């Protein structure tokens, strides 16, 4: 890239690497077992019919090749450790190293889920302490740490609502979901046996109170609301919303994906939310790991507590901690064992490293960063909703469209500038959305580099639109043809492919 506007990145020589199967050859070994200290058993005799012939194309490679293979692969990835990751709605913040260290402590990492409770008090204390922290942070009365991710938490939360309404005699039929909602919300409602009714937002990008009152009735179980919503806007009439639902016997579910805008500043439990989930892999900094694992604890008000998934963590009369399996009204289990415990450890470590002051400062910096970006870029990109932004800001590609440049193109061009793109074309209420969430983890230097990049891309979109449309130009692979890939999906390697090796 000769482009002098690109300050943050340069091209550099990087290793190619084939598929691991293309490096395999019989007799190479990456393992060695200790000698067997019990009599050998002929597995073919022991298993008879059930015995396996061989392991087909499983690889045979040495440890050295394994280290190189995955190290080389890793160098093709972008990561928070390399730079800003402004994915709106994803809260890509710093993943502290100490969290990884404590999560790997033998006594925690090697604990078996069925080991007796009396020798599991340490693990249980971690869960209890985290639960208590999350309850004060959300302002709720009860919580479960069992859900494995946000969507899983949504399902758990909606099941709580359903069980509660059922206990009142009627589970009802519908869930209201704003048009700006994340796809997991409607998908979750469906799994829980509810019809989804769309709720449109008003000109300010918030829930349309009139529409809500009109649509709310005894058939509606409740509303799934994200607050701040996916436009980064705080639902100012939140309590009115809650009242409208409650008046008709419905419940307010809050998708807590955007809690990074609220922690320490306000509590959903105080503004009328009945049940919500948290994404520990967003707000509480547990690493995304290229797509997971996550953790989606669900917190709720007292009335919903009896329905929590079992087992429920309880303090016994003697002060020890344990699990209560005797929960007659429980919605049942949503996952085996107790959830993604390793993520609970990390989230608690994050909370302790911050403390009350750190958590508040974190929220303030996250909102400060988003508003700084908004201020600096509102001259260059169209801002469809003018309501004030919390932790993220959503622009549209309206102006760039004149030259046929779309949000997806701008995103790809950001790659050449050394950044990971923002979230593309979500929320759906904004046509051609650029959804930008910097989080608190970005320095002023990095923010300014991002702003410069966005401004210079805006210029390029006018002066040389094709440069933007054909981006990225700096990566080891150029734009990949996703449509062709979906037409004839190749989802696994087969020996035949072997020729395409080495590249």
């Amino acid at each position, binding site marked *: 890239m000769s482009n002098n506007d690109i300050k943050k990145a340069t091209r550099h020589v990087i290793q190619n690497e084939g598929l691991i199967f293309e490096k395999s050859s*019989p007799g190479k*070994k990456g*393992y060695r077992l200790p000698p067997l200290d*019990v009599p050998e058993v002929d597995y073919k005799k022991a298993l008879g*019919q*059930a015995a*396996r012939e*061989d*392991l087909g194309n*499983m690889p045979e490679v040495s*440890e050295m090749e*394994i280290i190189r293979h995955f190290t080389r*692969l890793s160098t*093709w*990835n972008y990561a928070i450790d390399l730079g800003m990751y402004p994915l709106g709605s*994803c809260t890509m913040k710093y993943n502290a190293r*100490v969290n*990884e*260290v404590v999560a790997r*402590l033998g006594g925690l990492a*090697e604990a078996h889920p*069925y080991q007796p409770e009396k020798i599991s008090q*340490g693990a249980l*204390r971690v869960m209890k302490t985290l639960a208590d922290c999350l309850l*004060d942070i959300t302002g709720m009365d009860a919580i479960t740490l069992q859900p*494995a991710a*946000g*969507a*899983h938490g949504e399902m758990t939360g909606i099941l709580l609502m359903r069980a509660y309404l059922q206990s009142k005699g009627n589970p009802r039929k519908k869930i209201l979901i704003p048009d700006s909602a994340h796809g*997991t919300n409607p998908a979750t409602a469906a799994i829980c*046996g509810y019809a989804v009714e769309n709720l449109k937002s008003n000109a300010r990008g918030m829930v349309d109170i009139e529409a809500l009152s009109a649509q709310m009735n005894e058939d509606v179980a409740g509303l799934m609301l994200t607050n701040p919503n996916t436009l980064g806007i705080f639902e100012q009439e939140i309590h009115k919303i809650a009242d409208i639902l409650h008046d008709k016997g419905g419940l307010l579910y809050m998708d807590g994906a955007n809690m990074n805008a609220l922690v320490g500043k*306000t509590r959903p439990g105080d503004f009328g939310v009945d049940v919500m989930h948290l994404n520990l892999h967003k707000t509480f900094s547990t690493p995304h*790991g*290229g*797509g*997971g694992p996550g953790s989606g604890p669900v917190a709720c008000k007292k009335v919903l507590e009896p329905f929590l998934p079992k087992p429920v963590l309880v303090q016994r009369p003697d002060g020890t901690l344990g699990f209560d399996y005797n929960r007659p009204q429980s919605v*049942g289990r*949503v*996952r085996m064992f107790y959830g993604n415990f390793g993520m609970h450890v990390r989230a608690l470590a994050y909370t*302790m*490293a911050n403390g*009350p002051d*750190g958590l508040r400062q974190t929220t*303030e910096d996250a909102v400060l960063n988003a*508003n*700084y970006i908004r201020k600096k870029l509102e001259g260059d990109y169209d801002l469809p909703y003018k309501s004030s932004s*919390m932790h993220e800001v959503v622009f549209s590609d309206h102006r760039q469209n004149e030259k046929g440049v779309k949000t997806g193109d701008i995103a790809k061009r950001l790659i050449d500038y050394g950044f*990971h793109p923002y979230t593309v074309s979500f929320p759906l209420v904004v046509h051609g959305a650029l959804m930008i969430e910097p989080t*608190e983890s970005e*320095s*002023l230097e990095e923010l300014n580099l991002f702003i410069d990049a966005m401004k210079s891309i805006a210029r390029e979109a006018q002066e040389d639109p094709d440069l933007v449309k054909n981006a990225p130009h700096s990566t*080891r*692979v150029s734009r*990949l043809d996703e449509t062709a890939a*979906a037409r004839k*999906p190749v*989802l*696994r*390697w087969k020996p035949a492919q072997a020729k*395409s090796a080495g590249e």
Partner: protein
Amino acid sequence: MRYLPKSPADRQQMMREIGIQSIDELFAPIPAEYRLNRDLKVPRQMAESEVIDYFRECAEANAAGYGVFLGAGAYRHYRPVVIDSLISRGEFFTAYTPYQPEISQGTLQAIFEFQTMVCELTGMEVANASMYDGSTGAAEAIMMAVRVNGRKSALVARSVHPEYREVMSTYSQHQGMPIAEFGFRENGRVDMAELEKKISEETACVLIQSPNFLGVIEDVAAIADLVHKKGALLIVSIAEALSLGIVKPPAEADIVSMESQSFGVPLGYGGPYAGVMATKEKFVRQMPGRLVGEAKDSNGKRGFVLTLATREQHIRREKATSNICTNQALIATMATIYMTIYGREGLKELAQQNLAKAAYAAQEFGKKAKVLFQGAPRFNEFVVQTQEDPYDINNRLLEKKLIGGLPLKRFYPELGNAALWCCTEMNSKEQIDAAVKAVGQ
């Protein structure tokens, strides 16, 4: 706060440029009455060394250095150190879902390799990028089967992990998918007669586990025949993935739902683990979860992308195949590295060691107590029935720094004083002999 990259001057400058005097102006949208005007009740800000001391204490308050005979869906296997050193590279563990393939090829290729290895091991044609775990994966498999053949009800073997069964009913209860169960025989295998009786034209699918929760390997082929005759789909759930090193893959199944924790994933008091779903090519568009596929770039160079997204919630919303979004990618990467390390020969050799340890232990226990479900093949788990209450036995074992088998009363009261024991390569002969001795007392 040491994680925050801002100086007071930076914040001042930014506020000036935004045009505000105080940070609270940015929180004005929050109605005053809901603003929190006190410190959160969380522990005070701690030094890194204090955080570590706290968790060390917790770790020490937990069992450590015990010989463990627990399996039952979570298996203790040796974890080669390269796994953690590789997944600890920031490029893997601090990356997001690979929605931008040009700067995510590392994660994408690793997952493509994961999908391939899962197919090789399970005998299926396609596998997805992971589910939350084996239990939720089993539930999703039933939902998938219902989508595939339009029928509604499901039959699940009682020899399937009890907690998997709980999760399945939680998922299915409000989707109009009644789940019925069928039992097992003397030898621990499913009761074919009962299955035959219960299966009907309404049955969308039959779900079994092999090796099942009692440690017994099912006759998948025979079950498949029966199930397919009735036009239903067979779902095979696998909790101990390592068994596939020597146990014939359930190629006759239509869907395989597997927990891959055994492949280098820490026990971690129950999670995070990674489920995976594999099936036949023809069913792929009904599959839940993410899929990585091969693609070509504008120069015809090979690359990988997330594909068939039209199945997923962010496109299909309420009509999606599942609501899953974030999955267990890093755990799948761990499993990929583990499968690569042991590979074609190592998984077999390791599985043989597990078989040998369990066989030896079962034989020794047999001298002091009753080992149930003889006559059908087993992998690394077996059920021991004793005179004495297994909880009492286990308390005795704890003093010897041994954690005994899982008492089954809670799940199978009819088995009386029975416990499910597991032996892996991590259980020395010495430990096994000590455990047998204690049981015999």
